[in-house]
């Protein structure tokens, strides 16, 4: 059996505890009653034997005398005795019975209406001449002792159970609250708030120490992130500035160039530096998306409407390239996300579909909802990507052999992947038989 939560673990423990406590209670109660019964049985047997006497000493007169003696003796004064003849007529004794008791040992209770007796044992035996001797003794030191004992058990064990249950509930709630505090901090951090920390209680116990260690770890991560962010900002400035300088120098040289041939060469060099800058911009954009700050700008939007809007916008571009774009009829699918980024992801997917398929290819965009996810698909009927190449396609700078000489910098899918991960979704590639299907699966809240 697996315990999935603190509460099931506690529940199982409490159940086991209750069963053990109750079993102990019942066992003690049962054994006590049994022991008392055996002792009482032995006592009434002894008294009964003494009164019945040995064969030959059993004339009614002797028996009466012994009954009288027993009733007077201090040791046996509390014993109930009754002697009846073969016809059930009472011959002597100190009690009366409302029913005929069976021969041998039996249990009697308040219902038998023996004065001063609430629970006891009886021994019925026959003596020579058809006489029947009944010996009765109490099994309780005082009236209703058993009921009192049950009450004592209930109160005693009950209070133990209450204390344990209360303690466990308190324990579980306390642990749950501390875990909850940590979890809320973790969630806030996942959502991009690196300033959140786990509250530390003054108790200074295990939890406080754990929280302090956790917070120290977060401080460290936050410092590392800040320095990485500084590094990338420095790269942005330090690398972009000389590149910008190079580009303007080239542009200036082109202006001053004498011959058209030189101008063309310099034009090509400027185009190369632009490609380099575009790749660089894409890397910085990915870093920006991966930074996670953008989640703060998430808003409710209709993914189907957005897909429709992007598809409508891209339709002329796709048509212009000699391909066709099908838009599946879409019903509203509300999600929480960044409209700009998701739009960019869709545009990039459609651009990829145009870039990597032959003229005349059909491309389709659609959005569907399952119980757990909202899935955007872009499908083309082009050459597709073989199973072993799909992983490579998702890698940063991962360009497939077939497209190595095409335009592009191999960061398109990496950027889409970063956008999808920002939305806590997954990006996957499938064989569309024929062609490629790209799936963006976003979890539903």
């Amino acid at each position, binding site marked *: 059996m697996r315990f999935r939560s603190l509460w099931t673990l506690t529940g199982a423990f409490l159940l086991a505890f209750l069963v053990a406590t109750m079993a102990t209670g019942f066992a003690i109660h049962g054994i006590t009653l049994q022991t008392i019964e055996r002792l009482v049985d032995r006592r009434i047997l002894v008294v009964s034997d003494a009164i019945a006497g040995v064969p030959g000493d059993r004339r009614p007169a002797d028996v009466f005398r012994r009954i009288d003696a027993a009733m007077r003796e201090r040791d046996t004064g509390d014993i109930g005795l009754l002697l009846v003849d073969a016809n059930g007529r009472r011959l002597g004794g100190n009690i009366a019975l409302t029913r005929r008791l069976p021969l041998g040992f039996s249990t009697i209770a308040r219902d038998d209406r023996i004065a001063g007796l609430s629970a006891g044992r009886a021994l019925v035996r026959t003596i020579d001449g058809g006489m029947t001797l009944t010996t009765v003794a109490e099994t309780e030191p005082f009236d209703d002792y058993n009921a009192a004992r049950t009450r004592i058990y209930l109160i005693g064990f009950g209070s133990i159970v209450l204390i344990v249950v209360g303690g466990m509930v308190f324990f579980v709630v306390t642990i749950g609250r501390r875990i909850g505090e940590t979890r809320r901090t973790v969630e806030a951090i996942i959502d991009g708030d690196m300033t959140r920390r786990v509250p530390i209680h003054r108790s200074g116990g295990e939890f406080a120490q754990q929280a302090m260690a956790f917070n120290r770890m977060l401080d460290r991560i936050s410092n590392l992130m800040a320095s990485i962010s500084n590094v990338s*900002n420095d790269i*942005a*400035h330090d690398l*972009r*500035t000389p*590149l*910008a*300088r190079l*580009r*303007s*120098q080239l*542009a*200036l040289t082109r*202006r001053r160039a004498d011959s058209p041939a030189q101008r063309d060469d310099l034009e090509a060099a400027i185009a190369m530096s632009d490609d380099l*800058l*575009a790749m660089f*911009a894409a890397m*910085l*954009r990915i870093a*920006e998306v991966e930074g996670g*700050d*953008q989640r703060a700008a998430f808003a409710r939007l209709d993914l189907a409407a957005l897909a429709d809007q992007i598809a409508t*916008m*891209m339709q*002329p*571009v796709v048509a*212009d390239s000699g391909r066709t774009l099908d838009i599946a009829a879409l019903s509203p699918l509300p999600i929480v996300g960044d409209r*700009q980024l998701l*739009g*960019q992801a869709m*545009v990039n997917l459609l*651009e990829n579909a*145009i870039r990597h398929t032959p003229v005349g290819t059909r491309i389709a965009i659609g959005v569907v909802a399952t119980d757990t996810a909202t899935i955007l698909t872009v499908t083309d009927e082009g050459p597709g990507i073989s199973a072993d190449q799909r992983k490579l396609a998702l890698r940063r700078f991962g360009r497939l052999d077939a497209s190595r000489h095409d335009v*592009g910098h191999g960061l398109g899918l990496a950027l889409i992947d970063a956008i999808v991960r920002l939305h806590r979704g997954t990006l996957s590639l499938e064989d569309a038989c024929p062609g490629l299907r790209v799936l963006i699966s976003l979890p539903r809240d």
Partner: protein
Amino acid sequence: MSLNLLLVEDDAVFAQAMAEELRGLDHHVTVAIDGREALAAVDSAPFDAVVLDRMLPKVDGMSVLQRLRDGNMTVPVIMLTALGRSVEKVEGLEAGADDYVVKPVAAAELSARLAAIVRGRGWTGSSADTIRAGDIVVSPTRFRAWRDGTAIDLGKLEFKLLAEFVANADTVMTRAMLVERVWGYEFAPTTNIVDVYVRHLRVKLTAAGGEDPIVTVRGVGYMMRG
């Protein structure tokens, strides 16, 4: 359109190259190499627009902008910077920049943006609900357009594109400017989306005859004749 520009840039090579290119595009350019010099220049002479680097020695670009705006100096400012993250753009625009351009940028692109801003300032928005360029009339409130009195049937994006052209008639609009203003996306498109839409728009504008009102400015963008 010839503008009197102040170029604030601490990188001498970049500043010189950009200044020469802008001069080649008929502008008058004064270069300031740090924030303090920039503030002094703005105080001493009127400029049509300022191109402001964000990372500057002495007084940084954001502070220069802040002081200009605090001093009620409404001179148009384009921030030109290596810091291209969305939050940084928003910061720049919220501080009062009229445009925010990430380095590097072609002089022609910068010139087009400067011209659009300076002209945009002059254009009052007009109290009438239609705007006009040549024989083309656009009603942004009614989402309708006419050429020579004949209604033109346009898609939503085609309409926005035409309205942008008409509102900025005689000003060169670069592809990046059109993407930002018409499509409302801040990312650079790698497709020829602007060219495709302009081509469609041209077909519709000339369907009933008449000269093509949109001029292609090679290597820069498009311009509508006023």
